[in-house]
C-alpha cells in the first residue's frame, strides 16, 4: 500500500466540497491510490457571461483545475474520470454531446 486509501478518499471529499463543483451529482472512490469519479459533472455557479462558449470554457477550466488538485494529493497514482457528460480525449476535455455529434 503506497498511501492509505481512506486518507486519500477524505482528502478528495474535502477538495470536492470546497470546489465550485456540484458534488451532489458525483460519486467517487479510491482503489489503491487510483481515484474514480463518476456521475454528471456540473458546477454550482458560473462566473462568466451567459454565452454557451464562455460557459463551456469555464467548465473545461474547472475540470482541468479539479484534475490537477486531485493528482497533487499525496498517494494518488491516477485519476479515472467516468463522467456522463464529459470525456477526456488526447489530453483535452470534450463535452460528450460533441463526441456523439
Amino acid at each position, binding site marked *: 500500500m503506497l498511501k492509505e486509501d481512506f486518507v486519500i478518499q*477524505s482528502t478528495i471529499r*474535502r477538495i470536492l466540497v470546497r470546489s465550485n463543483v456540484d458534488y451532489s451529482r458525483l460519486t467517487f*472512490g479510491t482503489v489503491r491510490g*487510483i481515484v474514480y469519479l463518476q456521475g454528471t459533472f456540473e458546477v454550482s455557479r458560473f462566473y462568466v457571461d451567459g454565452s454557451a462558449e464562455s460557459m463551456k470554457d469555464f467548465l473545461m477550466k474547472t475540470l482541468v483545475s479539479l484534475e490537477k488538485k486531485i493528482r497533487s494529493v499525496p498517494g494518488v497514482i491516477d485519476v479515472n474520470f467516468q463522467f456522463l457528460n464529459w470525456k477526456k480525449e488526447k489530453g483535452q476535455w470534450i463535452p460528450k454531446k460533441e463526441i456523439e455529434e
Partner: protein
Amino acid sequence: MDSEERDRGIRKKGIPVNEQIMREIEKEIQIHPNYADLQNQFGLLLAVKGDPDGAESHFLEALHLNPKYRETLLNLGYLYIEMKRWKDAEDIFLSEVRKHPKDGFLRHVLGILYFQTQRQKQAAFHLQKAVQYHPYCREYYQKIGVWKKGAIHFDQNTEKVLKRIRLNYHYAHFHNFVGLYLAKRGKSTQAVREFRKAARLKPDESLFHANLGTVYYYQGSYQKAVDEYEQSLKMDPHYGMGYANLSYIYGLTRRIPEALRYMEKAVRLNPGYADLRYNLALLYSDRKRQREAIFELKKALRINPNYLFARINLGVLYEDQKKWKEAGREYRKILRITPEDEYVRQRLERIS
C-alpha cells in the same frame, strides 16, 4: 409593520431579513410551486420579517404538500405561540409530545405555553419532564431559579422570568438558514457568524453545532470542527453523520484509530448507508483487516449493487487473498457496466 403585528410581538429589532434570499426563494417557488421545502423556507423568512399571516399560509401549503413535514409543523406551532393563538399551538405541540414523549424541548415549549396561559399545574408537569429529558433545560431552569432542590418552583421572581421567555425558535432557524445559504456560496466566515447567532438563540440545538462543524471542516479549521461536531453529538448522540464527519476529519489529519472508531459508530447508527460502509471498508483494508473490509463491501453492494468502486475494491481484496475466481467475477461485473475501464481490464487479464 402595523400595530397589530407589533402587539403580537412577531418582529424582533435588529434582525435584517436578507432581501436577496427572499427574492431567490420567491423565484424558486414560481418555478417549483409544489416543493414543500421552499414553501417552508419562505414561511420562515416571512415569520422573521414580521408577516405572520403570510408565514402561516406558506407553512400550511408546505404541510398540504407533505403532511409529515415535522420541521414545518414545529415552525407553525411556534408561529401560533408568537401570534398568541394558544389553542392552535397547544394542539400541535401536544400531538408532537405524544409522538416524541422524551423530547425535552417540546416539554419545555409546552411548559412555557401553559405558564403563559395561567395553567401552572400543567406548566409544572411539562417543565419537570423537560428537566428529566433535557440536560440543558435543567441547567437553564436552575439558572433562572425555576428548578430548586429537585422540583419545579414558582414564585414572584420566576413568574416574571417565565412570562418574559421568548422561544426564539424562528430567529434561530432563520440564522441557521442564512448560514447554510452563505456557506453554499463559499462565504464561510459570514456563515460561521450566522450559525453562531443561531446557536446562541437556541443553545441546545445539535444541528447548529453540526453546521458549524461542517463550515470549519470546509475552512480547514479541523480542531474547531471536531469541537463543534462533538458538542453536536453530545446533544444528539444518534446523529450518525456527525460521527462520519468526525471520521473524515481524523482521516485528513491521519489519526486513523479515531477515524476508524467514529466510522464504526456511524455505520452502527446508519446500517443502510452504503457510502459509510464503503469508507469503513477502506479503513479496514488500509489496516490489512481484509476479512472485515470484504464483509463491509459486500454489505455496501447488497444495499447498492451498482456501487462500482465498492466492487473494484472487493475484487482487489479478493486478489490479495489469492481468490482469483472471485476477483475475476467482480471485475467482469464491472466491465459489463463500464467496459472502458482499462484499469479493471488489466487486472482481469493479469489474473485470467
